């Protein structure tokens, strides 16, 4: 069975919510939609206080190339445009909308009928993906239209659909693959058309046999799409790891996947592309997993963007006693939330509730030179070295040791027997080195 070669770990899977069908979360009374939800330039709000908006109406426009539009997820009145605490507690501008009814834009097709014929041309698809604010739903929220525009001199050969979901606990993509398989496959075909490629690979880890079987069966009707089961290994959902696993090609340091003729999209993104191109539906809702060992009712919810995370927790049976940490995202790469009132954004894939024992860090001890972190690093870096360099503020040296190639998967920290905060330092180092590189560009 295929997998990537270098490094990797296998944390306990804990996919508690994998058998829970996607439920629609009731629309909250108020949503706070941050205007900067994607990687790249933030969008500019185009509505004012007191404006009436409908579901799917454009409320913030992305003007730069790497930016994306933001649409209203509810209908109602714009209360204000003000700062909201994001997941890290820092203030970010957001559009507050008081909900009234659920009135959708007229051109959105709300029926469930599957539209298989792709009538839109290549350019129309890219334009629609851009206009309807589709971003990568795997977590990084990179604007999808940018990935679909193949730069001159490069040629896309294959589209890879990422159904790996290697993060423990999370099951949102798994449920999408089971419940929206046809839509997902049509979405894949649309993406293949936009890229002008004949081949589409769907990579799924074999801890989801039902999804592999279901998609393999259905994909026979779609020419060019193949489903590949993959060995369970974290971080297989990383773009570069997935390409290596499926095509045995290696993306060079500092380069994008298009360098080796691949484009990777998440299954959630493929579904969003289907809905955008065939049904005119902008990206204003997504599937979010809420789970945790003590959660009463771990679920997969279809949530409108901007819904406070606290509403999700409420719907899953409330915060269990002894909860001491709420994590936005998966347990490996997610970040602890400062406040549960932070809104769900396009990049939120899950919410995890941990108790005291699960959330406490182990005490930091001295490095025992076991090289465990080097062995598990999927990028072939030396985590112990670059984290030390960051600690000593030797950023140039850290850059030479390819600190910017780190994908922040956390395998090193997970595996370290001394409980060293390796990834924490590497993240700080990446931030500092990034600053240095940007300043260099200015001069």
């Amino acid at each position: 069975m295929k997998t990537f070669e270098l490094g990797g770990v296998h944390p306990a899977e804990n996919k508690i919510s994998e058998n829970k069908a996607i439920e629609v979360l009731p629309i909250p009374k108020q949503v706070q939609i941050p205007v900067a939800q994607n990687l790249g330039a933030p969008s500019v709000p185009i509505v004012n206080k007191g404006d009436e908006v409908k579901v799917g109406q454009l409320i913030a426009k992305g003007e730069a190339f790497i930016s994306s539009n933001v649409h209203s997820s509810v209908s109602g009145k714009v209360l204000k445009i003000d700062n909201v605490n994001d997941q890290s507690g820092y203030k970010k501008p957001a559009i507050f909308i008081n909900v009234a009814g659920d009135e959708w834009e007229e051109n959105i097709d709300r029926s469930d009928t599957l539209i298989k014929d792709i009538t839109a041309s290549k350019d129309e698809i890219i334009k629609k993906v851009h206009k309807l604010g589709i971003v990568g739903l795997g977590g990084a929220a990179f604007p999808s239209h940018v990935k679909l525009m193949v730069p001159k001199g490069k040629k896309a050969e294959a589209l890879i659909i990422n159904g790996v979901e290697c993060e423990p606990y999370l099951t949102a993509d798994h449920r999408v693959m089971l419940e929206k398989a046809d839509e997902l496959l049509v979405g894949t075909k649309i993406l293949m058309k936009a890229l002008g490629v004949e081949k589409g690979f769907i990579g799924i880890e074999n801890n989801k046999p039902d999804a592999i079987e279901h998609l393999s069966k259905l994909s026979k009707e779609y020419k060019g799409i193949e489903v590949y089961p993959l060995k369970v290994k974290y971080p297989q959902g990383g773009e570069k790891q997935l390409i290596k696993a499926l095509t045995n090609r290696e993306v060079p340091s500092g380069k994008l996947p298009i360098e080796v003729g691949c484009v990777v999209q998440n299954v959630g993104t493929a579904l969003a592309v289907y809905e955008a191109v065939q049904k005119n539906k902008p990206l204003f809702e997504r599937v979010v997993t809420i789970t945790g060992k003590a959660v009463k009712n771990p679920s997969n919810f279809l949530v409108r963007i901007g819904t406070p995370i606290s509403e999700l927790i409420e719907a899953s049976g409330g915060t269990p006693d002894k909860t001491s940490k709420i994590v936005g995202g998966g347990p490996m790469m997610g970040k602890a939330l400062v406040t549960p009132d932070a809104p769900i954004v396009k990049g939120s894939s899950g919410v995890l509730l941990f108790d005291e024992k699960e959330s406490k860090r182990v005490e930091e001890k001295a490095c025992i030179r076991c090289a465990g972190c080097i062995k598990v690093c999927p990028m072939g870096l030396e985590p112990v070295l670059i984290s030390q360099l960051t600690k000593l503020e030797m950023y140039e040296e850290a850059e030479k040791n390819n600190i910017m190639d780190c994908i922040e998967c956390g395998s090193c920290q997970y595996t370290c027997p001394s409980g060293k905060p390796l990834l924490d330092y590497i993240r700080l180092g990446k931030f500092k080195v990034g600053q240095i590189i940007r300043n260099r560009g200015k001069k």
Partner: protein
Amino acid sequence: MNDVVIFAVISLAGIGLAAAIILYFVAQKFKVIEDPKIDEVEEALPAANCGGCGYPGCRNFAEASVKKANKDKNIEGLYCPVGGNEIMSKVASILGLEVEAQEPMVAVLRCSGTKKNAPKKVEYNGPMTCAFAHNLYQGESACPYGCLWLGDCVEACNFDAMYMDEETGLPVIIEDNCVACGACVEACPRDIIELRNVGKKSKRIFVSCVNEEKGGVARKNCKVACIGCGKCFQVCKFDAITIENNLAYIDYEKCKLCRKCVEVCPTNAIHELNFPPRKVKPVENKKPDEIEKTEIKQQV
């Protein structure tokens, strides 16, 4: 037997002589001509190598000042904060120049977000450095501008001029030891520490807050936050106070130390340092009894 010894001695002496001659010419050819003044200036400097002057060490500062003295006949813009005016006049006399005396500076902590004033909202157990915590999230108190209580500034201080107060969580500056090298200013990821002039008899007035949030929000998170109400701005007769982004700032060059602003500040965000106690205590800002008295531990 003797022949061997004599031959060995003569040949070794010959090699030695030849090597000496070669080395002499090589040394002449690659001679580094250095101004002896550099050594003299370096000798006069405090040898703290703190980087407060903007150069990596005292030697580099000495080189730079000699170079500038030779080129421009002045050493404007070069100042050793550790040595102060005394050392600088010494340096100038070595270089045959004169310098204008500069006003001495001291580091000032512009945050009063103690553990009582800005209560803990979340628990943090990551690496205990400010740089990291700042990069990750807003900090344990809910103020995204305030002190993180983790002491990167104390770590950076080479002069034993700072320590962390366990009770308040804030760093404390020992004024007598502070040489205004700026290492703490550099180390603080939130730009809370500022270098201000020492002032007459060490008296200083400053806004002890850097929060730019709207008044209500700032006040909710910290009892002694500057809320940008503008009362100090109105009462100041010397145009020393500016208000930008909901935050007052006192220009120390214009401030005449009249203390009117301290009296009107509704949140006690403006601090006075080293003033004699007031005769008549103002009544109005005594209301909120929970407010921890703007007790400042800066030692003199």
